[in-house]
């Protein structure tokens, strides 16, 4: 696996439908109100496929797949070039 992926959530868009936890139980659980709690396990192999399906299925379009590393401002200039 050349790249590690992480799941990102637009927390404003998320309405707590909970499909992501159904489709990607390896990584996502729901809190007592049905909003996702994302684990820290790396997404590889089969789980990556589940993640893609979960992203596609989210009714609020709130789920996305990010390529790690992510978005600290200090890393940005390097990424840009």
């Amino acid at each position: 696996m050349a790249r590690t992926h992480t799941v990102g959530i637009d927390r404003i868009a998320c309405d707590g439908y909970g499909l992501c936890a159904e489709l990607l139980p390896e990584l996502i659980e729901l809190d007592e109100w049905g909003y996702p709690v994302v684990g820290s396990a790396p997404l590889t192999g089969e789980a990556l496929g589940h993640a893609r399906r979960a992203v596609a299925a989210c009714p609020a379009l709130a789920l996305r797949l990010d390529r790690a590393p992510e978005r600290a401002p200090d890393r940005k200039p390097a990424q840009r070039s």
Partner: protein
Amino acid sequence: MTEAMTDGRTALAAGDGRAGMLGPHGSRLLHGWYATGGPAGLDEHLGRYGPPPFPRTADAADRLIRAVEDAGLTGRGGAAFPTGRKLRAVAAGRGTAVVVANGMESEPASRKDETLLDLAPHLVLDGAALAAAAVGADVAHLCLPHTRQDQADALREAVGERQRVGTDPFPVQVHELPHHYVSSEETSLVRWLNGGDARPLATPPRPFEKGVGRRPTLIDNVETLAHLALIARYGPGWFRGAGRADAAGTTLVTLSGALRTPGVYEVPMGRPLGEVLDVAGGAAEPLAAVLLGGFFGSWLPVGQALHVPFAKQDLASLGAGPGAGVIVALPARACCLAEAARVLGYLAAQSARQCGPCRLGLPAVAADFADLAWGDPTPELMRRLEGRTGLLAGRGACRHPDGASRFAATALRVFADDVRHHLSAGPCAAAGHEPVLPVPDTPVPADREWR
């Protein structure tokens, strides 16, 4: 105090001979106030510091950014992010940059930005204009809460005066925004300046990539910009004449609670917290704990707090940070749990109500905490509260739930004895006393009040 003053003076004398620039406690930003006892107008400001040295070429702009990097200046709005690195990221962005000076100061226990803007408005305006020149911006905004109408008028007047004298390439635009707790968050400023609500946005993109008008946007706290204005004049070596190698310069602090002379002061970074409190006359009565960073901050037990240096690295080891320099000394007579419960109620009411954890989780934590402080708490309630508190962090568009989670978690840890007492005997007598922390009695903002 004397150590930093001496260091600062030596550095100054070696630099350009401005040996008289430092006021009491090695103050720089507040030096003018210590000298005259009043706000500094443009004449006085230019007499003291000279005109802002604008970079005229791309090389000179790069040197200014390098100076800020070498100075080790970090953001004074709470995150303590290296300012030079941010300048460089914005300067390297695609498209013409925008500068935003953040003077919103929504922390109820903070007064330092308001004080700085009152006493040394031209240092802030210098800093905004210089930062704009450094990153190649063609517009600079200064964001203030609409509750400080007089200050906004005074700053518009100051900008007008600068235009008449011809200090700056373009005038800083002064704006008055809604005054809610999360309206000072940087994406709230971007959203409002773009015509929307002063509520946080989901990231990415971060403002330094795509902010105001989808352009690279530098957002800095007003105090940070004032320091930048002095670094541009006197250089990184001078800036490092106060503070420590890894915590450079001075910082404004708002000291309140059970202190003899509470107020806004300027202190060198890296001082033990006890010495910082001594600047405000020290404790006026026995203390129980110190709240560091305001409502977005952490509780520290007083024994631990007084010895820890006021610097990001040292505070991080205790799960705290310098924040925006808000330090509240909580007296031993107060009910710590009632104090914390009131703050959590405020934080819950002040959320932007956009994300699940803030709409549902945070109010639940606040309600549990209120039960702990004033109700009949059970071990079961405590387990639920701890679980809910732990689940807030990292699950919002902005850091509001993270701040509330840290506030609640450190309160439960530092006040563990009080928790046990409330569990076994119910509310203590002090739970009904007059609050120490200044929790504003503001209603939940209506939807239209965010614009």
